């Protein structure tokens, strides 16, 4: 079937198998490889993108379900002026990433979290990111990054 999805502001229209997962559409058809696959049980969150502005695990959405909708990935997070999104800036500043594999999904999940809750507590950040696994950082600096991006104080 033909699937058309607006990804980071550009419509990508391709003929794909009906069973195509959104994450594969993003990575293969749209050629955007920042979004990663880390599991096969909807557990790790590495594939998190925004679908119509809200975080979803793109491995557990069919591309067909997103047909006619809008997707934002890490590659589309920068402003039109090219400036880094506050989360991108903050993740680097706070060393909220090491190997980087969980990072695109972590940042997109954080973006959605802050959208719903602009000034979360540290515990709310931890709870809000329960669906995003990281093996490298122990999460502490990820929490710092989200707090930083939200304009709140970070005590390192």
């Amino acid at each position, binding site marked *: 079937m033909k699937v058309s999805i607006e990804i980071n502001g550009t419509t990508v229209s391709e003929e794909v198998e009906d069973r195509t997962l959104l994450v594969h559409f993003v990575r293969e058809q749209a050629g955007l*490889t*920042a979004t990663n696959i880390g599991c*096969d*049980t909807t557990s790790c969150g590495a594939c998190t993108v925004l679908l119509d502005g809200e975080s979803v695990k793109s491995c557990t959405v069919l591309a067909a379900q997103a047909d006619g909708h809008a997707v934002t990935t890490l590659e589309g997070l920068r402003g039109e002026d090219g400036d880094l999104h506050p989360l991108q800036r903050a993740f680097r500043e706070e*060393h909220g990433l090491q190997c980087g594999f969980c990072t695109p999904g972590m940042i997109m999940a954080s973006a959605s979290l802050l959208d719903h809750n602009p000034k979360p507590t540290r515990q709310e950040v931890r709870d809000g990111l329960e669906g995003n*696994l990281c093996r490298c950082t122990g999460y*502490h*600096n990820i929490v710092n990054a989200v707090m930083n991006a939200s304009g709140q104080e970070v005590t390192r």
Partner: protein
Amino acid sequence: MSIVGTRVVRIEDQQLITRGGTYVEDLRVEALTGAVHAMFVRSPIAHARIASVDTSAALEAPGVVAVYTAADVDLAPHKAGPVVEPWLADGVVRYVGEPVALVLTEERYQLADAAELVDIDYDPLEVVASIDSALSDETVLFPEQGTNVLSPHGGEFDDNAFDDCEVVVTRTIVNQRVAPAPLEVRGAACAWGEDGRLTLWLSTQNAQISRSTVAKGLGVDPAEIRVITPDVGGGFGAKIGTDPESVVLGWASKRSGRPIRWVETRSENLVAMTHGRAQQNTVTIGGRRDGTVLAFRLEVVQDGGAYPRATFLATLTELMATGVYHFPKVETSSRAVVTNATPIAAYRGAGRPEATAAIERAMDLFAAEIGLDPAEVRRVNFIRPEEFPYASPTGANYDTGEYAKALDTVLDAAGYADLRAEQARRRESGDPVALGLGISTYVEITGGDAAGESGRLLINPDGSVTAYTGSSPHGQGLDTTLTMLLSDQLGVPMDKITIRHGDTDEVPKAVGTYGSRSLQLGGSALRQAADQVIDQARALAADRLEASPDDIELNAEDGVFQVRGAPASGSVSWAQVAEQAELTADVWFGDGAPTFPFGAHLAVVEVDTLTGKVVLKRIIACDDAGPIVNPLAFQGQRHGGLGQGVAQAMLEIMNYDADGNPTTATLADYSFITAPELPDFELVDSETPTTRNLLGVKGIGEAATIGSTPAVHNAVVDALSHLGVRHLDMPTTPLRVWQALTDARKAN
């Protein structure tokens, strides 16, 4: 002002936060155009004879290019320890997850459809599903070995070793099997070029070791293979070198005439990537009631899994058996067993977490037996600062350490006395939420392989620097750390320095990254290469400045060569000398010796004694690996280490049932630690240098994992001690805590 020791955000991050890393699955290179996709068909059963394999239906499936089995793979066999590990299972399968067939299809989405059609008939055999079952030799898995027990070591025990002890405690404790589970699973891509060379893109920690492995497996000269390491999404020891699958893929690419891309699923990864830990340790500790330990015995049994790829782990455990203590009498032994489970190999700490977990649990058992505070008992037995360098009875040679200071710093930062008071208050009031305090004081061995590392430097004509390191970072931020060091040493701005690694054509000889060796050895190699290049440059600058080379010095702050004491007489820049002649040095740094980072951790847990639920409230950690080069990266390694160490103590276990079926084989079932389970970490710094390498540093990569597991474990036992619990095995899940409490109640 030197940049070394200051917090520098990472060079690596610019790409990672905007476009994402380029991991092996992300590669879009010309050589992989037209690549087929690969999937291994894996055994669903722990031990069985392969009665038949029928690939005919699979071969008919859409897009199938080839289906290979053991009968097709005409490579010389290779061994795991003393036994042959087949490239694809041949006649028998020995663990759930073992590769039995390889399917190649044109499109990724065709793989699982085709793999399902490979029809394999298994005749079940008796399963050896546990260490105890293996030790009994009731079913011998490799009849030609005559026993399941391999690599026995040590064990010459003195029956009278504990005679002069007032108190002796002995217990067998389990260091459970865990899954390394990096976020990026294993993956590879390969293509044979027209020049007959194989290019292999590999998610690995060691491109050069991988090249040797694949060359040997394929029976070709290593020069015929190029291994390129893209970005790697975590390794933690489980991506050391490469697994047999990579050899099979290289072979299959040749046989089919097509480039191949392979990535496993997470469910495959959890059963087919090597597991970690899986030891059973019997500790016997004896001494006086004043806390002095007089004798310690450690008996290690290492579960090697189905193919014993890494039995050296148990000998590392023996090596570090006595930890931070000086004991008059020490006896150790180790042996490995084969079982019908996933092979065991290195996982963050690789043999040392097991040693620390054993001795730290033993110290607490001893302390409980004599009724002394566990901190006090540790102090009595620490190796004293004046005893360094310390030759342990187990053959380790510790460089430097300040164990009492580390413990005191942590207890102070934690408010230990107040915490004990709170614990007492809760016990008195019968509070069902118990407070537990757990201490661990640890030392570990880094750069322990004593194999050295390569470093090559090139000053480009424009004065920029290209540095080639044998190290192979995969998240540690080593590019930034090395850049800082080179910038400081050479006086070249950081943005004019490029670090290259992971490509065997650019770095032909190297060991790579494991055992927390990279900064101390890779960094020392580049330090040495930079020294040589500076000398070369000084000679050239001397010419230009018409002075003797001995009178020329590098003004590292401005990055220019000048006559010492006479800066006004002229400066020569790096670009100026580099234009004149090639400035390069290629070094193998082999002068390093193992180093011994150390520290102390205090864990504070709350245990709901009605449900068994454990919550880690605080963890205060001191991890000393010598001078800190980049505090940002250094802290990150400690945080990540803490996360994994806590995870093993509290949550994670790769569980097998009695039939050898893994019951925690998906990320939904395997209790991979998540953000809500961890508190903010409280770190205290300490920097005790070493003289064993040019940088005076030790390795931090594994230390916090090693220290934190026993701290949390001890804390849970401590929380329950007033209710009669002396020990429970990790992970301290609610069920296990509840069972321990129930058993203790019944025993009273």
